[in-house]
């Protein structure tokens, strides 16, 4: 009986810890809310913050600035009054870390040199070329994108 009293007394001694714990839980809930809000907005990919659109050589390019490892993502090149053929090139270093799973429509030819891969498409008028990308691992990535002779550097981040 005496031992039981002692145990209950010991539990009551931890009340101070319980109060501190609740405080930490409240802060943690706020951090979790911010984390999820950031996720909703697209800070971890797939949202308005991540979706980026740029103009290059008269073409509109749309891509995700933030990607996630092993999660596929699309890279769009919108054509407007395009010539009969369009050449799009990627730097090899980028493609070593980010795999192209599929290209729609398929290029008519592929060429490579020391540090770039060139995809040639039969185009004309309006349309869209979609590259389905799969990041192989995490970290920051630098894409050197070329469209019809113009080159632009694009920075992306892949979350683990």
């Amino acid at each position: 009986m005496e031992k039981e009293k002692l145990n209950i007394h010991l539990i009551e001694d931890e009340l101070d810890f319980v109060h501190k714990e609740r405080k930490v839980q409240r802060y943690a809930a706020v951090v979790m809310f911010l984390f999820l809000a950031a996720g909703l907005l697209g800070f971890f990919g797939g949202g308005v913050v991540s979706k980026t659109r740029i103009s290059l050589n008269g073409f509109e390019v749309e891509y995700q600035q933030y990607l996630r490892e092993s999660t596929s993502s699309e890279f769009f090149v919108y054509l407007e009054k395009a010539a009969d053929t369009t050449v799009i090139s990627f730097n090899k270093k980028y493609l070593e870390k980010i795999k192209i799973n599929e290209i729609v429509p398929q290029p008519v030819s592929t060429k490579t040199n020391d540090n770039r891969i060139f995809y040639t498409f039969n185009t004309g008028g309006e349309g869209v070329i979609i590259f389905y990308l799969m990041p192989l691992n995490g970290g920051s990535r630098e894409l050197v994108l070329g469209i019809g002779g113009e080159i632009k550097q694009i920075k992306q981040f892949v979350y683990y």
Partner: protein
Amino acid sequence: MELILRAFFIYLFILLIFRMAGKRTLSQLTTFDFILLLVVGEATQQALLNDGSITEALLLIGTLVTLDVIFAFFSERWPLFDKIANGVPLIILKNGNPLIERMEKENIEMGDILEAARKKQGLESIEQIKYAVLEKDGKISIIPKGKE
């Protein structure tokens, strides 16, 4: 090496998030908690086995646990919400008399009540049971005769 780091990170995250959610989350396995654990298990497995992104798993687990906390918060404040989300307890035996219709609808056999009576109260027969209640979490509570 990466596998160890993944396991370490995910273990820590899950430990922290369930501590954040409070003691209630895993103690009472309601329908939603059960679904939560199944999905958390699947997401964790994918992230651990290098099949998916850790960030994706953290977002998924974080969303589900936060939903669980929100559901618990609403259930605590609004009884109707609690009834809809978690159901209500049901008396299945009264003063030693089994309520057969209720038992049949809930797929409960006399053996289940007797098992709960033996395990929880050390009772030998249904005559010794005042009430048997099918709780919200699916467990059977036994109130022996002689207790108010």
